[in-house]
């Protein structure tokens, strides 16, 4: 177990460097003129351009810029964004609210998917099952760029049930609507996966045995079937983290949440290479750690799985 974790951590370091290199290269290829992007359409005076070019090594080409970035990074300095703010400070303020939003969305989606998925599986072919199928198809068809503003308009502006926007220190209640919107990006697949895997396990031999032994149906479902059905769902949740992050880009913009998604979008708009790379690096780490946790959870769910 310990050796497995160490091996995975070493792999992570490699993945981390690979990912930052690719992102840096992409940002560099996309870069036309960050100084002008920052100034918008205002003219930039020659002496200002010269001073900024020197400060951010913009005249040095890709390898030069990557070298400056990496040497700083290895000494623990994430550097400055092109607008002159410390990237570490940006990360520090942007992460907490996004983590809260993503966790809320994960819990909402997970609870809903589990409850509805199990219910659909038990009563398959029934009204609820068909209803859930139609509902998940609708959710899958609706992109979040449509869903988020529509939800804001109906539930916040027209019905006034929720605040229209949420700030950095938003309360649980203010984040609820954005979290529900974000949850819709993953809940449909999670529900379908839960249903399928529960249906499959319901027909398994051990369930028949348990029934024959006279175990209570509730105990069969929630302890025996569900535990075995959770593995595909847990795997999916690990992957869903990526979906949630890309959904956060839209959700955060619509609900004005100053989190990772909105800062990333802003960084891409202003061709701010160091800022985008900084944010993506942390995203990569979160993603890797989440997947490690998911892999380790398998062992908890199924004792037959062992790590060497």
């Amino acid at each position, binding site marked *: 177990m310990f050796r497995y974790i160490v091996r995975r951590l070493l792999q992570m370091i490699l993945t981390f460097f690979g990912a930052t290199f690719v992102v840096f290269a992409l940002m560099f290829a996309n870069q*036309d*003129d960050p100084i*002008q*992007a*920052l*100034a*918008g*359409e*205002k*003219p930039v*005076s*020659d*002496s*200002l351009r*010269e*001073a*900024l070019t020197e*400060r951010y090594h913009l005249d040095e080409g890709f390898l030069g810029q990557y070298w400056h970035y990496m040497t700083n990074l290895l000494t623990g300095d994430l550097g400055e964004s092109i*607008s002159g*703010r410390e990237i570490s*400070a940006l990360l520090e*303020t*942007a992460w*907490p609210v996004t*983590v*809260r939003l993503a*966790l*809320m969305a994960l*819990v909402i989606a997970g609870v809903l998917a589990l409850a509805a998925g199990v219910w659909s599986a038990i009563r398959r072919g029934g009204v609820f099952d068909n209803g859930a199928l139609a509902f998940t198809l609708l959710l899958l068809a609706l992109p979040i760029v449509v869903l988020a*503003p529509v939800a*804001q*308009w109906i539930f*916040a*502006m027209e019905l*006034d049930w929720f*605040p*229209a*926007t949420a*700030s*950095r*220190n*938003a*309360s*649980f*209640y*203010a*984040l609820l609507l954005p979290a529900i919107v974000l949850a819709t990006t993953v809940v449909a697949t999670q529900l379908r996966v839960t249903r399928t895997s529960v249906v499959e396990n319901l027909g398994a031999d051990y369930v028949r045995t348990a029934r024959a032994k006279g175990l209570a149906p509730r105990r069969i479902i929630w302890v025996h079937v569900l535990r075995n059905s959770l593995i595909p769902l847990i795997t999916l949740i690990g992957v869903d983290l990526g979906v949630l992050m890309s959904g956060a880009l839209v959700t*955060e*913009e*619509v*609900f*004005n949440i*100053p989190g990772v998604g*909105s*800062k990333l*979008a*802003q960084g891409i*708009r202003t061709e701010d290479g160091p800022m985008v790379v900084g944010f993506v690096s942390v995203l990569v780490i979160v993603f890797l750690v989440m997947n490690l946790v998911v892999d380790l959870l398998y062992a*908890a*769910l199924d004792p037959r799985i062992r790590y060497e």
Partner: protein
Amino acid sequence: MLGKRPWKMAAVAAAISLLVAGCGGGDSEDPTNTANTVVIGIAEPQHLLPTNATDSSSAQVLNSLFYPLVSFDAEKKPVEIAAEKISVTKNNRVWTIKLKPGFTFHNGEPVTADNYINAWNYGAYKPNAQGGGYFFDRIAGYTDLNPLDPDGDGPEKAPEPTTNKMSGLKKIDDLTFSVTLSAPFASFKSVIAYSVFYPLPNAAFSSDGVIAKGFEEKLIGNGPFKMKGSWEHDDKIVVEKYADFKGVVPKIDGVTWKIYGDQMAAYADLVSNNLDVQTTIPTDALANAPADLGERFQKSENSVFEFIGFPTFLPQYKNANVRKAISMAINREEIASQIFLGSRTAAKSFVSPVVAGFREGSCGEACDYSPTKARDLYRENGGPEEIKITYNVDGGHKSWVDATCNQIRASLQVKCIGEQEPKFAVMQEKLQNHQDIGLIRLGWIMDYPLMENYLNPLYGTNGGSNYYGWSNTAFDTLVKQGSAAPTPEASIKKWQAAEDILAEEMPVIPLRYGQNVFGYSERVANVEMDLFSKVDLYEIETVA
């Protein structure tokens, strides 16, 4: 449950507690509930240090924290505010600025002449890379702080500046200083109203010419409001009344500058009364705004001027009559009302109506919509068979460019296409390399209300925004003579003569003047916006 082993239970417990910790907490403080303060929506300011702040969001915040030397009256004439008297020598070169006594910074420091001199020197010094640094270039000694690259854009780098003090700034006594210009300029008084000319307290500097770390986050100004706490990036900036302020006192007790990443989100807050003033109603909401806001949906004039430039290095647009013909083919009123729903007005001059010296219709016949005349003129002068209008796709210009092209196609009966470039910077680069990109769409917001602020940057030979490379010696001379003229009135005469050359030559097609299109909540009244798209903080008040 999941398992019988304790570590599994612990993992679940840890996950739950993490979630609770993550979701709990958070302030429920609602800024709208505080008495007699208002919430105004802005975008995240890029910088707040006055000499580095050139975007409109930072200008608004600075307007609450600082008190300018001069302000403008109803006729756009500069009047002293923080200055007691500004006088000038006969040749318009040496300006003496005497400050009003008794003013203090928010940390209690008295405002002195040194505070201005230090702040301006800091702004002009090239290694500080201040966005508004070029505003000091009229002051004698600016070039010492910004030495030029000896071989233009060549391989050699510009030398390091030898000094960080402009020779043109001299302290006379604690409350008086003189500004010597490198060339006479009769309207310098209008220029110093701009936010880069604010003073900085001694506390701003950690040593000579070095701004203390963190000063920008907790800015100390000389204005009616002081910062409460520090700049909460991407979230808000809260300012409250400064008790010792000696100038005109606003009616409100404070402002929460609420930062929005997206204007539609701000609009949602405005409609649900969580935001008191939104200074720009987004285009997507324009159709609904009159119904959503009723009387609280307002328009007022601002300084935006939108136009199409002719890259005069392209042979097909060398003939001024061809340029005039294209201009006459465009129905400006129709586009302003149909596409912009009245949020812009048709432009028929080369400067905005908000500056003194503006003349209605100075563009003459060339800006009137007359399709048949346009076609005849175009044919006679052999205009090109195909016209291209290039625009940056990230600016939301597609609809009006397409409409303009349709009008040109109908009037001149030639092909017209709107060509997209991803970003403004790409357009600029292609222009610099003299690539054939056809006509280009451009816009301008003034820095100070003078005709010169439109004429020089937009049409002058070395103008900062003259991307299309039009150049006319007679025009340059007239603009320069205007700046050197003995009185502002004499300046305007010269500048108007320069504008007449533009009407003859048509280097650009004037299209539209912008407007402030804003809305406010039921909590506030007397909401007015000035020419610089800033909310008038001295007029606005809360109701009930």
